[in-house]
């Protein structure tokens, strides 16, 4: 972390960048939040640890409108999102100075809760200084430990890799965190009977409170005006007035980002209700890969997406 701060200070001082987009300590030690830093002094609040899961690429849409260059820290998976935004002309490459930061897998309080560690006060061992093996957690009921790996976000277990698709310089090492196949969960659901699938999604989607956190965090969901807030479809948001809309919202949201979603997993990470929203996006990714050939959104900043291209012999609807 100190290395990041030192380099940032240099870049601010020599005028390469006008500001820095990074993370700062939040209300709780487990939720650092995205923040701008305009000078070396303010960097005292800067953090980069295992809880910094937030994907900063979406903020670059806004930063591209500001004067001067913005330094942004992107983890390997975040660079795909940035690249996809680049392809869609939503961010300005010239306005960004990208430092690719090492990633050893991101952890979350929700993951700790899931393994039975609740009422977390503080966590040690997530500073990324060592090999990230063990976490020591202080809770209201006393101290406990767990393996770093067990507190990792689902997306890190199926991480796409340590490669950065776009950057100006790299700082820090990344670790191999993969111990699963990212389509396993989708396959599991596909193998269920229609009734079971229905019951599963009914249970999950019923939890939705339409807080729009998934939409707001998603780098692909970056419309100036969302169709669900628009009068153009007579679908303007009427919170909970018509509950069908929740389901429609999630299906359409997944559809709108199909072929553009980089599977960054932010939607599931931020969902306060813990809905596994990534399962919808991954279904589209899986279908696209199976039907139209492997495609990875954000891998390239050029070319058409699966839904803006076709072949003459594509599969017929309803046959898959």
């Amino acid at each position: 972390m100190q290395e990041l701060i030192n380099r940032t200070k240099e870049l601010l001082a020599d005028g390469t960048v006008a500001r820095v987009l990074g993370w700062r300590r939040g209300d709780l030690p487990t939720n650092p939040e995205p923040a701008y830093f305009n000078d070396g002094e303010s960097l005292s609040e800067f953090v980069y640890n295992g809880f910094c899961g937030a994907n900063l690429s979406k903020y670059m849409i806004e930063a591209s409108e500001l004067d001067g260059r913005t330094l942004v820290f992107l983890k390997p998976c975040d660079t795909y999102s940035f690249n996809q935004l680049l392809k869609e002309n939503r961010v300005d490459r010239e306005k960004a100075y990208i430092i690719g930061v090492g990633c050893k897998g991101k952890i979350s309080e929700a993951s700790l809760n899931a393994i039975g560690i609740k009422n977390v006060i503080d966590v040690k061992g997530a500073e990324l200084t060592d090999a990230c093996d063990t976490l020591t957690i202080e809770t209201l009921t006393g101290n406990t430990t767990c393996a770093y790996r067990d507190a990792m976000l689902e997306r890190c277990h199926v991480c796409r890799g340590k490669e950065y698709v776009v950057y100006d310089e790299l700082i820090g090492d990344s670790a191999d965190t993969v111990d699963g196949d990212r389509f396993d969960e989708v396959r599991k659901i596909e193998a269920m009977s229609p009734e079971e699938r229905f019951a599963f999604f009914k249970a999950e989607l019923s939890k939705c409170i339409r807080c729009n956190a998934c939409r707001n965090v998603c780098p692909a969901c970056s419309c100036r005006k969302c169709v669900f807030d628009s009068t153009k479809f007579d679908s303007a948001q009427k919170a909970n007035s018509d509950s069908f809309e929740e389901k429609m919202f999630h299906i359409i949201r997944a559809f709108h980002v199909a072929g553009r979603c980089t599977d960054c997993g932010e939607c599931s990470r931020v969902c306060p209700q813990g809905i596994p929203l990534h399962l919808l996006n991954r279904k589209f990714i899986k279908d696209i890969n199976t039907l139209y050939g492997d495609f990875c959104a954000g891998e390239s900043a050029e070319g058409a997406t699966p839904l803006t291209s076709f072949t003459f012999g594509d599969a017929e609807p309803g046959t898959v």
Partner: protein
Amino acid sequence: MPMNDNAEFRPKIVAFCCNWCSYAGADLAGSSRLTYPADVKIIKVPCSCRVNPMFILRAFEKGADGVIMCGCHPGDCHYSTGNYYARRRMTLLFSMLDYIGVEHGRTRVEWVSAAEGVKFSATMNEFVEKIKSLGKNVRLGDLRCRS
């Protein structure tokens, strides 16, 4: 509301037809007096690629029991490529609906040319039968599920 066993279930079915092939195919079915159930109501769109997944979900939201989209045969699109995009969109959308547990048969795409009045009528007869066998569409409505 429980279904009255004596009353025949009459589904609500929305058919999106492209102006150039399928709408004309439906016209031909009409002028050839090839009957199909009155449950099918046609909405004319310029091309199958005009059909937004939003329209299909909206129909279900408002109580449709089945939605079918008809367009020109691949390769014969009046706008050359429209139905190819529509095909990908609908393939993915239908797969998603199936994934979340909505019955597979409630959505359908059929390519009907202007000369295929017989096919249009046969398709609609078949589709209505299918929807009747599936019964009222409760799942898409039920996902709303105030539990």
